């Protein structure tokens, strides 16, 4: 017998139960697509935002002041970090909110202790499954370059890793060298939220 695509057979005489099952299946499929899309949009948004941010960052450096990546954005690019060995380059955003983190790594604001007045310690946070996936692959000795919107370029070297609860983290008040901390969720391959964070510590090795 001839086989037709299922939708062409829709008019065929079927039992009421079958119709219900079909309708239900359709609803489930739709829900599945919606959920999947919700998931899929995250990395897309993360990647797309970086393209726009890259542009905004270049503009910011040129203008010597932060430029918003899109008119309605509530944050602005402040720096770009790159790790040559891993081919990573991400534009860092000013606000430490979860909103901004969808688009790129964020610098924790000084009010929460993210950056001391002296600039001694900078804490950057990003999602483990988008921009900070690479933290997993960082090694002691890796060089991280931080370019600021004001044109300063600073180089850091990874010196240590730390696994810590989100509420048990502290930064040194007066370290010998300025430090950079990259924080993300841990364990890396888990998809469920958890209390642990992985922090990569880097020490300033030079500027320019």
């Amino acid at each position, binding site marked *: 017998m001839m086989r037709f695509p*299922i939708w062409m*057979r829709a008019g065929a005489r*079927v*039992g009421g*139960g*079958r119709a219900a*099952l079909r309708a*239900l*299946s359709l609803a*489930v499929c739709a829900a*599945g*697509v919606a*959920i*999947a899309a*919700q*998931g*899929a*949009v*995250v990395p897309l948004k993360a990647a797309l935002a970086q393209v726009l941010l890259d542009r905004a960052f270049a503009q910011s450096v040129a203008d010597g002041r932060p430029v918003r990546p899109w008119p309605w954005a509530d944050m602005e690019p402040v720096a770009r970090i790159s790790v040559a060995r891993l081919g990573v380059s991400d534009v860092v955003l000013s606000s430490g*909110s979860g909103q901004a*983190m969808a688009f790129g790594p*964020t610098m*924790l604001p000084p009010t929460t*202790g993210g950056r001391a007045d002296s600039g001694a310690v900078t804490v950057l*946070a990003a*999602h*483990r*499954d*988008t921009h*900070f996936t690479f933290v997993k692959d960082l090694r*002691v000795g890796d060089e991280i370059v931080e370019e600021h919107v004001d044109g300063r370029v600073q180089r850091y070297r990874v*010196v*240590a*890793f*730390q*696994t*810590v*609860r*989100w*509420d*048990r983290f*502290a*930064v*040194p*008040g007066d*370290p010998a060298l300025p*430090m950079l901390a990259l*924080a993300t*969720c841990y364990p890396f391959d*888990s*998809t*469920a*939220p*958890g*209390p*642990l*964070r992985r*922090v990569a*510590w880097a*020490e300033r090795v030079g500027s320019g």
Partner: protein
Amino acid sequence: MSTLPVTRQRLAVGAIALLAIVLSCLMTSGLLASSQEDASDPSAGGALMLRGTGKGVVATMPAVRLGTDMDVTVSGQVARVRVTQAFRNTSDKWMEATYLYPLPDDGAVDSLKMVVGQRIFIGRIKRREEARAIYEKARAEGRKAGLVESDRPNLFRNNVANVGPGETVLIAIEYQAPVRQLGGEYALRLPLVVGPRYVPPHTLASTAVAPSVAATTVAAEAGDMPSEAPLDLAAVADAEAVTAPLAAPALADVLNPVSITVHLAPGFVPANVISPYHRVNVVETGPIERTITLAAGEEPANRDFELRWRSAGADPTVGLFHQEFDGQRYVMASIVPPAAARIGKPQPREMVFVIDNSGSMGGESMDAAKQSLLHALTTLRPEDSFNVIRFDDTMTKLFEHSMPASADQIDLAKRFTEGLEAAGGTEMLPALKAALVDDAAQTKGNVRQIVFLTDGSLSNEREMMAEIAANGRRSRVFMIGIGSAPNTFLMRRMAEAGRGTYTNIGSGGEVNAKMTALLERLKTPAVRDLAVTVEGGSFDFTPRVLPDLYAGEPLMLLGKGPALSGKLTVSGTIGDKAWSRTVDLAKASDSPAVARLWANRRIADVEAQRWGGQMEDAAADSAIADLGLAYGLVTTQTSLVAEDETPSRPVGATLTREELPLLLPAGWDFDALFGNNVAAARPDALAAADQSRPVELPKTGTGFMATLLQGLATLGVGALGFVAAGRRRNGKAAA
């Protein structure tokens, strides 16, 4: 259409099932997420090493320089040691200095002298709080003062206050310790440095309960501390007390030099006098006397000093000494069990090897530990069973249960061992618990031996002893102290609690000799069920719980009684044969050290009762304090304090406090240890008081993969629904 009702029914069932699957799919992921959030992850301590030693690394020379001289006199089986520490103030400020240093864990400190110029101040023994108050009062009034405190039987801290600009103050302490005898060889060990200790985070939380209870309750949260638990201030103070700042490797050659002189008079002609870790000069100063000095004059205090010797003649089998002290008679007897008499074929054994691969083992220690374990694995026989457990702040059991020692399994264990790398903190308790799980408790005639390979660089010793006391049962615990400065207190007491024995392996070159000797001792049947009787006298003996005796290892017995007479008989069984040895107490020779050694050994008994839960904390503390005061010994409850009566610091001049940095023990890998820690200088709870600032880390996982997969799964279920509906129709068309 007779099938219709059935079909309909099936469809209904299918629809309900479909719905149920979708719902459960959505719900479980949500539930999982929340449960995971609550779960405390044991790796929370994580890659951070040595959380407790947050005192950091010192890269500049301290203002107060320290030089140490040790003068040792060995007479018979007792060593009397005078340790003189010179605190030289090189700054133009008035200084207070504090220095953490190790002594043998069976050493009894009984004397303190503070020397300032031509004047000598003699220390007095006081209860700890009282001594501290005296010291602090003198410090505040500008008077010179010295204080000796102890926080572990092998960890002491000297404090000296009001050292003027350019001035030098000497602090001299004296202690005595028994000489260890093993297989005809005598050994004197002088620890010179305290390895940085790992402070397990859970011990700092105020939920960490008194050790007597700890055995049962700590089990659940070993390895992690509840997130909101307030800090236990006493525990934090304790952790502070057993840790010190570390000197950067660049300072290693110029900091804390030590000179050592040993006057050796063992009572027989010494032969084969060797110092395995330092180059020494040996000079014959008499027919049965030798003087040993460091060849280099001074050495950095970064590894333990050990001196070994043998008797040129036949091995003396009994050493018997006595002393009259305060109207009481004290006796010390060291009784050597008979040479190993093989009794048939050795019994099959279950051996559990526990190897420490924490960060403190980095460098030579890890290599020595691995070599030792590989060596031990080759000596297993097919009838034995075995397991290997490794731990840092996590742990892995090679096998779920002990496996027969077949060639394949041993190969597997070797590969496992070779792959170990040193990193992370030292959470020994979970590994100990795992090792003590006895699957074959019912198997008769089977011997169960647990062999630990570790440097013991941790601060929660009490939890280990408590665990062994509570769950040791028929398992015997053997300790192999690895590295240049292992925690011998932990080694000895864990072995004692576990009725085993201990040894130290200082370097890779010693592995074969030491492991062969230890494994040989493990293989030969021990003397068990020891009993001591004195005919015609009553003696209060210590240790109270007599150990099992391993081949070549003597029983060191200390007793106190009203009169010295009669015969002392030690009896026991080897295999299933009875054994006994009798000595005549009247033949004891005089030694001025016996009474204090008795008291010190008795203190160890009290500690053991405390761990075993037979004694409350307060009662144990007060018993220790009484012993300390009666015999003039520094204990955890009593301190020695010396003070000048006249102020020397001018009114208005401020006093600067400095904690002197320690060298890292030789062979430790500074980078493996501190690569991690220098950066995060004090990221832990201890840092609370310091200038470090807490930062809350945001939630940093989108979990989009889960969402995506969930969506796809839902889509898949929907598609299945369609297929099911389609197939129904096909089936019907065909019919």
